[in-house]
């Protein structure tokens, strides 16, 4: 069972992190007019590396018996230790707000597309797994 879910695990982590990043960018856009707000960013690569190492670490070659243990809850998404950094700001503003709205909107669109791509990867691997399970005379 774990062999089947292992392929999905990585994509599930990526999807959850994409959702968190989407929310972070939404927070930045929401606070575009708040005085003193410091825009934040997520270092996606290191966040994903951290998330996948903590879930994929135990027993990659686990047998049937260990599959149950490996299945227990490793939480998806950002852990307690944060990967958030403050965004580098391009222009100083008089109210010390560091949101660059153009960049945030671009990141939001980019992240949305990548979220959809991850979703499509998941759908495709589910479909190929289901295809592999079908018996040949089922069509």
């Amino acid at each position, binding site marked *: 069972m774990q062999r089947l879910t292992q392929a999905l695990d990585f994509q599930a982590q990526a*999807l959850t992190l994409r959702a*968190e990043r989407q*929310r972070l960018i939404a927070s930045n856009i929401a606070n*575009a*007019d708040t005085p*003193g*707000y410091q825009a934040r960013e*997520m270092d996606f690569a290191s966040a994903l590396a951290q998330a996948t190492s903590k879930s994929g670490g135990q027993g990659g070659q686990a047998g049937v018996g260990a599959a149950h243990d490996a299945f227990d809850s490793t939480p998806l998404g*950002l852990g307690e230790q944060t990967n958030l950094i403050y965004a580098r700001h391009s222009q100083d503003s008089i109210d010390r707000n560091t949101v660059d709205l153009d960049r945030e909107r671009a990141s939001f669109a980019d992240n949305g597309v990548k979220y959809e791509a991850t*979703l499509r990867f998941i759908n495709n691997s589910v479909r190929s797994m289901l295809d592999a399970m079908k018996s040949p005379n089922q069509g």
Partner: protein
Amino acid sequence: MSMLKIFDVSGSAVSAQTQRLNVVASNLANADTVAGRDGKAYKARQVVFQTLMMGEQTSAGVQVSNVVEDNSPGRKVLDPKHPAADEQGYVTYSNVSPIDEMVNMISASRSYQNNVEVMNTAKSLLMKTLQMGQS
């Protein structure tokens, strides 16, 4: 479902921007208000935004923390025939600057649109997430 929080975040921003637009509307409506018998004319108002943390550190909404009045003196116009004129013949109008208010209005409406767009995108992503594994 961490994406559902986007509606809280952007919703708070939309409601804050609505309040800002409301204040702009009040200011513009009172741009030509004259002082009453007590000599006090309408003062322009501004909203003060504040970050509102919503549980996790990745979701930060907005709230209106305060509405402040602009205390600069009102506009004085010499018009001795006006019924509200004082002894020197000056009429005190409100201190609203229509140009500032128009700029404020455009800024608020752009921010409103941005947040609505964020919610639309989040909604379409969530709808696709709901169909995961079907199709």
